């Protein structure tokens, strides 16, 4: 006892006592609460470990060994599981090349590997979680008319009035939203990937986000009432068609009218 009391005013003593207390309480709690959660947390820490291994191999060259970010890649601390699921699940990460924008392609990791990576990044700091499939019942919870209104104010200036995507500055672009998985659309809204700003749940409620998804799916399945939709991008293709094909035909007709018959 005497030896112990000699160290009780040591600067580290308080921290050590608290740590030991916490450890004791924690172990007692996990013993008392049974095997279920322990197994779950075990599986989770296993996934985190696995995710860390994948991260070190596949991502750390740009994002740093501890996801702290480098010159070439941003820090991933606090971006959350949703961000990982969006970027890796759509094949944007790892980036195909060092261009201004990561492009969507076939995912480079399996869903299990993606989940492990997401668990690892989520374990670094709290961030937006992956929305569950149950929370994405846009057919039931979305409002079509409201979705259209929200889309036109918040999304249409970049993604085009029919969700076909559009150009930004210096070669960057807003991707087309046709055929995109609802979960990925939702994740993009809560995490704000690349040039896109964040649409947090408190300034745009989850129900409003589901309305937007419902509207997008409706647009995607909409049949062209007036014939050819020309990619639904508006006056650019329409003008191009008229000025090249239409005007070309007229010039051809004028030449034919003016030519003498043999």
């Amino acid at each position: 006892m005497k030896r112990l009391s000699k160290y009780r005013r040591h600067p580290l003593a308080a921290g050590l006592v608290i740590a030991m207390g916490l450890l004791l309480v924690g172990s007692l709690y996990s013993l008392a609460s049974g095997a279920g959660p322990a197994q779950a947390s075990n599986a989770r820490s296993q996934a985190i470990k696995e995710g860390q291994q994948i991260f070190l191999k596949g991502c750390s060259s740009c994002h740093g060994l501890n996801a702290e970010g480098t010159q070439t890649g941003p820090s991933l601390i606090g971006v959350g599981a949703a961000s990982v699921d969006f970027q890796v699940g759509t094949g944007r990460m790892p980036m195909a090349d060092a261009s201004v924008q990561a492009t969507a392609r076939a995912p480079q990791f399996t869903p299990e590997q993606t989940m492990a990576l997401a668990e690892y990044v989520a374990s670094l700091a709290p961030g937006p979680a992956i929305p569950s499939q149950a929370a994405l019942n846009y057919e039931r919870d979305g409002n079509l008319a409201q979705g259209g209104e929200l889309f036109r104010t918040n999304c249409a200036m970049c993604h085009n009035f029919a969700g076909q995507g559009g150009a930004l500055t210096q070669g960057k672009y807003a991707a087309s939203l046709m055929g995109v998985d609802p979960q990925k659309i939702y994740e993009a809204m809560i995490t704000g990937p690349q040039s896109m700003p964040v649409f947090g749940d408190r300034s745009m409620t989850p129900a409003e986000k589901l309305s937007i998804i419902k509207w997008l799916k409706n647009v995607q399945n909409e049949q062209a009432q007036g014939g050819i939709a020309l990619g639904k991008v508006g006056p650019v293709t329409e003008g191009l068609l008229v000025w090249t094909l239409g005007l070309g035909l007229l010039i051809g007709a004028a030449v034919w009218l003016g030519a003498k018959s043999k």
Partner: protein
Amino acid sequence: MSDLEPLSDPGLPAHVARRADRDPIAEKRAERQVAILFMLSGLSAVAFIASYVGIKSDQYIFLPLLGTTNAQQLALGISLALTLLTIGFGVVHWAKVLMSDHEITNQRHTMRSSETELAELATTFAAGAASSGLGRRSLIKRTLGGALALVTISPLIILRDLGPLPKKQLEGTNWKRGSRLITDPGGIALKASDLEVGGVAHVLPERPTGQKETLEDLTRDPVLVIRLRPEDLHLNAEQASWTHNGIIAFSKICTHMGCAVGLYEQQTHHLLCPCHQSTFDVTTGASVIFGPAARPLPQLAITVDSEGYLIAQHGFNQPVGPSFWERSS
């Protein structure tokens, strides 16, 4: 002086007979071609009627390149186009191949009327003027003059509809001291804590309950609220005092032509106008870094009230939107 001769008039080139003029078989063939074109036109007209009657208006078909399209609309368009095109082609082909193509020269004649005709006109005019008695009947002359003058003035009076002058309407918005920022659409009153770094919200000033914003309000009130890291902002002291914890608000109405400036690039902090690509740098108070806009976007001074809601410190310190003649600043 010179033995150079002026170029002689080469005259018209000799007429070349067409194949249909020389060869009866070719003539018959051309006749058949024209007839076939006219028959095609007739058939297309029948197809037009048949597709109107026969195809359901909600029938959709998938075609490569064209995608899913309305079958009836497509059939109507194609058959009508063929009807008109083939009848036109037929007529032109007929005229070019079969109708006479001999060129005929018509000599020009002088434009001036003959002396006798001119003299006759002068006499007739003088006789008419004398018989109307315009020189003698001054009452008629004056009233006619007055009536004509008023007829000319009356259309001018409707030009008043160009007015009235907008006066101060273009100067102000509905933002005033203490207006809460509510999302549009959605109507959520925003708290400072509701916006994450990198987040944006499109907002309007809160209105008394039951009042709906008019279209005119939507042309001048919309504001974009953006949250950045406070250290990313490089503002002068006054502009910095109009922000709150890195939350900054700008009028969405472009200072160039009044489009809604909404393309915010989260990583570069650039705001882009979709109409003419004016680009504003949010970090320096929406200063123009590219494009035709002449002024930065007006910044809305914001702060938080005691409950944590974002509110306007006061209205805009300058008129929002594009320039106009009477603009005071």
